[in-house]
């Protein structure tokens, strides 16, 4: 995991699934959190990193940072925003 300046409350790895399960897995992980908590989502380059950040934004959560892990994966830092 890349060096982070965020207090991560939970991690989820979505590199083992493909669209649309990528987003679903991230969404489920966000549902487990409380409002304001921070999730780190590890995803593959390509389709996931092109689309998952936007889907999470459209769900109303706050994206803080996308970190390039320099190994073909990225980590998206997301703050949960409740309903």
């Amino acid at each position: 995991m890349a060096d982070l300046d965020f207090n991560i409350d939970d991690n989820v790895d979505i590199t083992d699934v493909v669209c649309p399960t990528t987003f679903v897995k991230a969404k489920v992980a966000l549902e487990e959190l409380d409002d304001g908590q921070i999730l780190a989502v590890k995803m593959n380059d390509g389709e996931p990193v092109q689309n998952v950040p936007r889907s999470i934004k459209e769900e109303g959560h706050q994206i803080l940072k996308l970190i390039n892990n320099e190994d073909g994966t990225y980590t998206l830092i997301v703050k949960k925003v409740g309903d």
Partner: protein
Amino acid sequence: MAVDYATLKKGGFMRQKQKNNFSLRLRVVGGNLTAVQLAKIAEVAEKFGDGHVHLTSRQSVEIPFIKLDDIDRVKAALADGGVEPGVCGPRVRTVTACQGEAICPSGCIDTYALAKELDERYFARELPHKFKFGITGCQNNCLKAEENDLGIKGGIKIKWRESDCINCGVCEKACRTNAIEIKDGKIIVDESKCNFCGRCYKACPTEAWDTVHGYIVSFGGLFGNSINKGEAIIPFIEDKEKLLEICDAAIEFFAENANPGERFKFTLDRVGKDKFTDKILEVYNG
């Protein structure tokens, strides 16, 4: 009594191979029908057809097996449910559209509103040959804009607004054309690579982009006996009134220059694309 097939065809009644049977094409705009219209279509198909309808390749509905003697009663019944016959033959055809920004998260323009506007402006206008409009909301091109005589594709022109940027890096990856580069916290957009898809803006957590929603218009598309991809003349049209003026100019050019039975692409080839380009640029810059 002789049957006037041309008039029937013009009114959406397509002659079937079964004698005295017609497949009635309905007027559908932008692929939308209300539940009330659908219920009426179902009723008419049961009562006057053989109980089925056909969805055409261009978002219309046809009710087959309508009998010649029932035509007036069918029209009256459909009118009761707010349904009109469509058209066929040498005129402006169904204006097709995807769901666009009113429904689809990817949409950059209100395709249905524009389809209705074009339909009101041009529907069934008599021309030397068929003329098809298609409107798609974004670069995903679900509606295949370039296969139409005049295709319209929604786009978003973007300009980075540094004050709202949190430097998360999402936009650089959201871009499919590699037009975005982040260097020392600054976002550099290569405008020659930008295809106006708007994905950077749509993915941005703070929407740190100034945006203009607009249109990419292609001319001369075909997807029948001959296949040709319509081509744009102006990269991006920002203003809707300008778009409508350009549509007017294209239709006028076709009406003035086309031979009977000649599709727009072949008119452009024969008369010269330069001549058409000059006309469109004159309208655009005028």
